[in-house]
């Protein structure tokens, strides 16, 4: 059957072009791959190659014609013994996509002060991805009654060790994690217990070893990548976002990336601008990632275990100053905090303070001071930044009607900005005052001790913000 040669689209944006020149004449034999014409697109002059073989039976659009629409027949190819008149000009139709039904969002119900036990919600991740307000995952934290005091450092180490005993595919790699026992001693003793095949010192080469770990995770391993600090992890951000976070989606669900990326985040003490930065909003921006930020030793242990068991890429934003702080921590190996569930650290009636990581401690200090001044603050420890436990925040807001969020990061497009937007979109009628944000100052971190203290949120700043939303 004769074949039509159509005006081709030769760039993502081309809708029409000029037929500049025919390089074959009617009656010429054409092989697949032969250049038959030149056309001018919106960007350049391009050659048109034949895909089918045959004889150029008829030229339908003569050279020099301007503004030929894409898919207009420009010539007809015939095979031996055929004539141009055999051509059937009917066009094929594409199947139209069908419309889908909407997923029904879970409803939000108002409840009393105490945090709900949680709910099992089908398609939780989709609902989270759509920004729907749903109850956090089920977790009965009170059931873990056996506790012992330990530092955040030891809690992180114990969680990794427990999970490495449980699953041989789990391994740890990074700079100084093995023989040096961790730049901040978080991996102390792991080399001795698990050996050099599973606790691996890497060269100082974040981009390369992160890409490598992502590849290993795609083929079924479960790497824990330690960045000496998240500041150095920025060298690897392409692999974290483009390779780890997006692959499941780009593969239509075929290929996941069960990787944990962890290390100290935010300001330590007097280490200057390049080593003092909070990455919470950077990574929380990205669909396909989960982001957790522990404060206490219990947070550290429970979230680390959850992150390692999670089949998705999980970012753990630790904090160097917290490493040495001690907390009561459940001893059970089953203490796994569900990702996506916040914790109410202090119950209160007058105002809600939402925070994460080291700022939870500052918020608790501020709450104690506020109590002396007669203001009863509720403090929410987010634990997870993405997916955000919107439910717990909004339930608290419904009770207190006033909200302050506290973060170490910069204000612009920060986690506080997201929470303020949440309160406006879903809690507008409950607000008795505009949401107040307490953030790191919008400057690179200064070195001088007094300036650094000014740049970081302090309990006094939180107290001030709370009083502002309480009109006191």
């Amino acid at each position: 059957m004769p074949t039509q040669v159509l005006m081709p689209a030769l760039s993502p944006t081309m809708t029409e072009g000029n037929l500049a020149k025919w390089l074959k004449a009617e009656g010429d034999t054409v092989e697949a791959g032969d250049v038959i014409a030149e056309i001018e697109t919106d960007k350049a002059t391009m050659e048109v190659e034949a895909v089918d073989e045959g004889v150029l039976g008829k030229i339908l659009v003569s050279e020099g014609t301007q503004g030929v629409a894409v898919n207009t027949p420009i010539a007809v190819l015939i095979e031996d013994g055929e004539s141009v008149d055999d051509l059937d000009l009917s066009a094929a139709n594409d199947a139209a996509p069908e419309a889908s039904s909407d997923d029904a969002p879970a409803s939000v119900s108002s409840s009393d002060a105490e945090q709900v036990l949680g709910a099992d919600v089908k398609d939780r991740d989709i609902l989270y991805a759509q920004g729907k307000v749903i109850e956090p995952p089920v977790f009965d934290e009170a059931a873990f009654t056996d506790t012992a005091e330990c530092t955040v450092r030891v809690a992180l180490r114990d969680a990794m060790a427990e999970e490495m005993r449980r699953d041989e595919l789990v391994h740890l790699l990074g700079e100084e994690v093995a023989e040096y026992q961790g730049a901040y001693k978080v991996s102390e003793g792991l080399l001795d217990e698990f050996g050099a095949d599973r606790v691996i010192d890497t060269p100082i080469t974040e981009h390369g070893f992160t890409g490598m770990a992502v590849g290993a995770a795609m083929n079924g391993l479960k790497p824990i990548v330690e960045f000496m600090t998240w500041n150095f992890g920025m060298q690897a951000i392409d692999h974290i976002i483009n390779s780890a976070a997006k692959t499941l989606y780009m593969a239509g669900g075929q290929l996941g990336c069960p990787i944990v990326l962890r290390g100290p985040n935010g300001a330590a003490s007097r280490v200057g601008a390049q080593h003092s930065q909070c990455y919470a909003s950077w990574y929380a921006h990205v669909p396909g990632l989960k982001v957790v930020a522990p404060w206490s030793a219990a947070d550290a242990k429970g979230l680390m275990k959850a992150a390692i068991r999670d089949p998705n890429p999980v970012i753990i934003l630790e904090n160097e100053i917290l490493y040495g702080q001690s907390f009561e921590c459940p001893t059970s190996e089953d203490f796994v905090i569900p990702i996506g569930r916040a914790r109410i650290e202090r119950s209160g009636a007058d105002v809600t303070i939402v925070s994460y990581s080291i700022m939870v401690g500052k918020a608790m200090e501020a709450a104690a001071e506020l109590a002396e001044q007669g203001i009863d603050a509720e403090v929410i420890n987010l634990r997870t930044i993405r997916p955000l436990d919107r439910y717990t925040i909004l339930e608290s807001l419904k009770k207190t009607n006033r909200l302050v969020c506290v973060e170490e990061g910069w204000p612009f497009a920060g986690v506080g900005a997201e929470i303020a937007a949440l309160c406006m979109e879903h809690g507008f009628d409950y607000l008795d005052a505009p949401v107040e944000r307490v953030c790191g100052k919008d400057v690179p971190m200064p070195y001088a001790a007094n300036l650094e203290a000014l740049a970081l949120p302090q309990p006094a700043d939180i107290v001030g913000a709370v009083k502002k939303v309480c009109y006191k």
Partner: protein
Amino acid sequence: MAAKKTKSSAAKVNKDELLSLYREMLLIRRFEEKAGQLYGMGLIGGFCHLYIGQEAVVTGIQSQQEPQDTVVTSYRDHAHMLACGMDPKGIMAELTGRIDGYSRGKGGSMHMFSREKNFFGGHGIVGANGAIGTGLAFSHKYKKDGGVAVAYMGDGAANQGQVAECYNMAALWKLPILYVIENNKYAMGTSNKRSIAGELHKRGEGYGIPGEQVDGMDVFAVQKAARKALDHIRSGKGPYILEMMTYRYRGHSMSDPAKYRTKDELNTMKNEHDPINQVKDMLQQDGVDEADLKAIDKEIKGIVAEAATFAQESPEPDEAELWTDVLIETDAA
């Protein structure tokens, strides 16, 4: 001439193998030509990078691999998927953005994967495939499964810092990886002469990684080099670099008119070094019937036509697909 030269490197190839190589390379070429045509009709969108001219590289290397091996490449990836044994229908349907595509229409030309065929993409960031391939090799070593990772990259990617970082780690830990640099002389529109200092196959020397430059238009030369490299890697000696000197006949992507090179250069490669014609000449010299070759041509055309029809008839993804596969669903703890 070209055919004469290949004679020597193909001394021991039997007729069945010749036919099989011919068939595989022809499938790639016809598939790519069809993809170009569908792009021209507006059925394929965005970026579309064709492999026409480079067929001998992936065909020759894949012919020497074992089933447990893994493969990763850049965005010029359709041929690698075909060589891995992925279904042309599923690949073409992904190109047209339909539900029956390998990524359910959510990946596109540059992002396809097959766990079943050990093909790990399809990556759009230049050089990322080098690091991901190194990770595949790490996983083979960790699991002790005897597999080798084959990481393809272009000459442009070979300049990326992460590739150098991975050479270092792969050599340090003796990872089972074959780095294949497909040197088609141009990183998009920038000629090697203007972007590469030294020679790419020697870039591993400082790390103790052996490297070799190979005529990537000659499938037998590719096979021979791959066999040697893979033997080296499988014996536990660590990585190997093969720099395949090849040529793409089309532009970098569909919208590239390729004005940065001369017509003579292109025609010389097409007329004197075409990988498919070299094998075809040998088959004819071996006395294979013209009718047999025609039959193969017809069969391939049929496969490609069927893929094109399938890719146009498969529906677009359901709107609910927008929200799936962002995260793997987990049970609440």
